[in-house]
């Protein structure tokens, strides 16, 4: 089943930059996909369009059955409830505890209190932070904060998890910890799309990898087929 379909997608920003050009891509349920490429290749734009932070100028984008390209601003929440998003800078509420940060995603859905409690505790257990539920974000390390962000992204059981450089601010060991958590989540059935420029991770995990260049797909390596060609691509 194709969870994400992009057909003939173009994105041109108002300042004239063509970030994405004629892009076709399908991602199936349960896949783990890396999106790599040099700075400015359009990889951020690509996934921003998936969670409808940006609208494509042309083309069709279907995410989990919703036509994102035609999704009205007031209906964006319908998409956001089907997906989880994780960022480089975590985007946690500093004045709320770990528990509250994760519970926030369920509160806006109007779930009852005890259901929220159970779900939050369960997901914190999954990311290994149950013991820090009452701490505030600034009392946690970067890796821990990212795990809270992941917990928040998956707490309502989304089909898709979108990660925008989730390890960008973390050292190598911590990055690998995060990747372990993400792989765990992927095994539980969540499709993951991750933008990264960390080729060590890509090399190590050997997932399907999409190499972008100037807004086009340069290569689409199947699972386990990734070879580092970065030296050839430097211009």
């Amino acid at each position, binding site marked *: 089943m194709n969870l994400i379909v992009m057909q003939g997608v173009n994105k041109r920003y108002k300042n004239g930059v063509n970030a994405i050009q004629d892009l076709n891509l399908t991602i199936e349920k349960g896949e783990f996909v890396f999106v790599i490429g040099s700075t400015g290749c359009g990889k951020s734009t690509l996934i921003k369009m998936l969670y409808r932070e940006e609208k494509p100028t042309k083309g069709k984008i279907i995410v989990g059955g919703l036509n994102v390209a035609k999704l009205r601003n007031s209906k*964006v*929440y319908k998409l956001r409830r089907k997906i989880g998003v994780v960022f480089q800078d975590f*985007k946690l509420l500093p004045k709320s505890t770990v528990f509250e940060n994760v519970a926030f995603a369920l509160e806006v859905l109007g779930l*009852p209190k005890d259901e929220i409690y159970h779900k939050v505790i369960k997901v914190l257990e999954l990311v290994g932070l149950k013991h820090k539920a009452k701490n505030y974000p600034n009392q946690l390390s970067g890796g821990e904060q990212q795990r809270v962000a992941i917990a928040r992204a998956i707490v309502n059981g989304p089909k898709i998890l979108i990660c925008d450089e989730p390890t960008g601010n973390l050292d190598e060991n911590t990055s690998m910890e995060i990747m372990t958590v993400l792989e765990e989540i992927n095994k539980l059935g969540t499709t993951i799309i991750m933008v990264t420029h960390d080729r060590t991770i890509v090399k190590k995990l050997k997932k399907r990898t999409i190499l972008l260049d100037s807004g086009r797909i340069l290569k689409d390596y199947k699972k386990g087929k990734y070879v580092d060609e970065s030296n050839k691509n430097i211009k």
Partner: protein
Amino acid sequence: MSMRAIRILSRNIRDSFKSVFRNFSLSLASISCITITLLVVALSIVLSFNVNNFTKLVEKDVTIVTFLDVDIDEAGREEVLTELKKINNIDKISFESKMEIADEMMDANETYKNIMSDWDEESSPLQDTYLVKVKDIEQIEKTANQIKKIKGVNIVKYGEGMIEKLVSTFDLVNKVCYGIVLALIIVTAFLITNTIKITIFSRKREIEIMRLVGASNINIKIPFIFEGLFLGLLGSIIPIAVTIYGYKAIYTKMDGQVFSSIIKLVKPMPFVFEISIILVIIGMFVGMFGSWQAVRKYLKI
């Protein structure tokens, strides 16, 4: 479904309460902005309502005094009355005979009493009068002219010119007051919008995260709108207190009247509470509108 809506709403109200106090210094800016406006609005309303009241009192008091010919008889008086009744703008007619007028004058003044005490129906130089009240004060001149034409009418008096001027002045004051109130409400709505925009800017991240985790736009707006409502409520406390105590004090001090006993101030009792209700409503409306406008900006992507 409805339970869910109730839960979401109650969480929204809780969060908006929290945020008023959490961002207190910024809330204070909005509150003082509303407070100052509402004070001026209160003043304008008090002024405008009182002027309105003056107009009504003056209008009620304006009488066209119709002096009849000195030698008019019973039948002639009846004839004039029938003619008067034909005029559209006339509201009430009452008759005062020359003897009644003499009695009134003698009661009021000792000297008159000495002179007038031996006047009788025949010898009195005074004239019988009809006291005429009009419906529309603006038409008083026309009505007076109509009365003048009636046979048996000698002189018509109604404080020519003065009354219309007074009434139109009151009318102007009233309009200016309404204008001020309206302008202030609009200006405050903008000021509040901007003040709250600053508050919300510091919470841009919060809105971003709310959107991210799937809060609908209404869901995001509601806490901010409630917050605006609370700000409006808090901002109206001081103006209401000032209105209630201030107006009562002024009323007592001026003995309830201005210049003369004709022009009376509106009695404070239900009046101050009516104003208070108006102030609360304006405060809440302005606060809500401001918040709603401010948050809209961050929901457009």
